[in-house]
């Protein structure tokens, strides 16, 4: 059954996947195993995206299916989701109020086992600094859509440096207008302009093989 569920998720059969997951749990299935199956399916969706077989619409629909299944699966797992690859503080940088890229990344990062602390949009440098102090993440993820965000990314990295926090973390920048030039300008460790690549690079930054 789990194999069929896996295929349904990967094939974007939203209704079929959700109903099968419900059926599996109602029949006494193991919620943890279900979670693992969903994670694996999301991993494959990400790989298909990176290979050019899937596009943003499939990432978004895959994320939607995952969220829908998790809604009734996670409460059934004692102590919640235990697997944690690492912790990411994630936010859209100052002066940018877009959330779509950040939100797609967040679902895929969580699906692959990261704990994500989402600090929102239009996030001032100080708020990133505070969040790093408070949550001690392994990775800081900064997102932007508009070009003004590029400069905010640089200022945020600088603020983390000034606060003496840069050494202990890895920084990934992401978003529609982000490229290698932005990574260098901002002083980040990695960049991605899609969620699949972003999650793969986060694993690499943690020394985990994708």
């Amino acid at each position, binding site marked *: 059954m789990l194999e069929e569920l896996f295929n349904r998720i990967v094939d*974007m059969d*939203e209704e079929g996947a959700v109903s099968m997951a419900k059926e599996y749990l109602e029949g006494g299935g193991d919620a943890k195993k279900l979670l693992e199956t969903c994670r694996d399916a999301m991993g494959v969706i990400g790989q298909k995206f990176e290979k*050019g077989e*899937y*596009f*943003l*619409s*499939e990432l*978004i*629909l895959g994320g*939607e299916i995952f969220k829908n299944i998790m809604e009734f699966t996670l409460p059934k797992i004692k102590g919640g989701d235990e697997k944690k690859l690492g912790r990411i503080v994630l936010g859209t940088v100052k*002066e*940018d*109020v*877009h959330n*779509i890229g950040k939100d797609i990344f967040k679902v895929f990062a969580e699906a692959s086992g990261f704990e994500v602390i989402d600090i929102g949009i*239009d996030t001032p440098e100080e708020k990133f600094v505070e969040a790093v102090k408070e949550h001690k993440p392994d990775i800081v993820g900064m997102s932007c859509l*508009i*070009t*003004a965000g*590029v*400069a905010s990314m*640089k200022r945020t990295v600088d603020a983390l440096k000034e606060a003496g926090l840069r050494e202990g973390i890895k920084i990934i920048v992401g978003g*529609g*207008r*982000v*490229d*290698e*030039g*932005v990574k*260098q*300008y901002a002083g980040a460790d990695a960049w991605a*302009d899609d969620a699949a690549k972003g999650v793969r690079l986060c694993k690499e930054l943690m020394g985990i093989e994708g």
Partner: protein
Amino acid sequence: MAKTPEELAKERYNRIMAAINLQEPDRVPLRGFGGDIVPAYYGITQKEFCFDYEKGTKAIEKYLTDFPFDWPSAAITGLDGRVFSVAFSEYPEVAVSTTFITGPMHEVLGDKYYRFPGMEIAEIASPQFIGGTFMQPDEYDELIENPPKFVAEKVLPRACRNLDTPQKTMATMVKLGIEFTRFGSVGREIAGIAARLGYPSIPMGGAYAPLDIIGDFLRGIENVLLDIRRYPDKVKQAAEALVEPIINYALSFKKRGFKWVMIPLHLNEYLSPKLYNEFYWPTLKKVILRLLEEGMQSQVFFEGRHDVHLETILELPKGWGIAYFEKTDLVKAKKVLEGHTCVMGGIPMSLIVGGTPDSIKEYMKNLIEQVKPGGGVILSPTIGTAPKETPIENIYALIEAVEKYG
């Protein structure tokens, strides 16, 4: 002897038109950019730039004076208003003013689509389009039945706080008319300044991809993508139904003597070739072809990566317009579209912001070597807005590099 503004404008115009007509001009034309840098360079905030047209005009004048691009694109900021264009598509004298919603118009409408500096966001922040969900999936039939009526009577009252009762709507529309007039007159003033400075006049109206109306203004990007899977027939019919209103809106510019429309695409890079060819491209293609029949060419901004859809452009007749690319490699695009479509783009904004004059010159030399032969190309930043921190010397380096190697 220095050229007169008329001579300079003619030289630039011929340069741009040669590229559009797939010829090799005297040198490769360079399209300019605007954005936060325009007010920052003049020393005012984005709020002042967006809301104080007099200061905004002065900022643009200074920018246009100091940075001589062949085809500048600095303007008072307005954000995409195509939902209003659909609503008023049957009234060309109204529709013609709806392409861009400026700060003062946003204030009048009280809409939830945009965020403007000094209102919802900081005074120094860039105005931003957010969009949203203002229609439910069970309303597709109503949209299909009569898009302008549905958008005007159902969507706009939900999307605009000041259009949510008939009385408020009446007052709002009067105020909006005043703002349309103000913006029209500042537009003419800026056009006059541009002419005095030797810039060519290539007025651009607007059109839109039908599916993007649904994604940007009615259902929201994520929802429309889910709708394509959940209610494919409805989505397809709705996009079809939007073709005619969009054409009517675009033709309101023809009546004013415009020969061009600008069409920025959004959902293109979200879709697989299968979905693109089924849900997006057919109706966009209809809009472009119909306008071409009416004597209007299109400049289409293929946002994001358009690589997998590149060859569909060849389905259009030769010389249909300009294909402006963001992340699609310009060299590759030119190879595919050579002799068929004028291509534009090639210069990453991160290079202009984060590069040095030397790295910019080197990049431009290399790019120009690859795309110049054979003509049919316009160089442009891959996105038209530069942040306020953009180093001035980099803008000069870009212009000089094109003058030297182009």
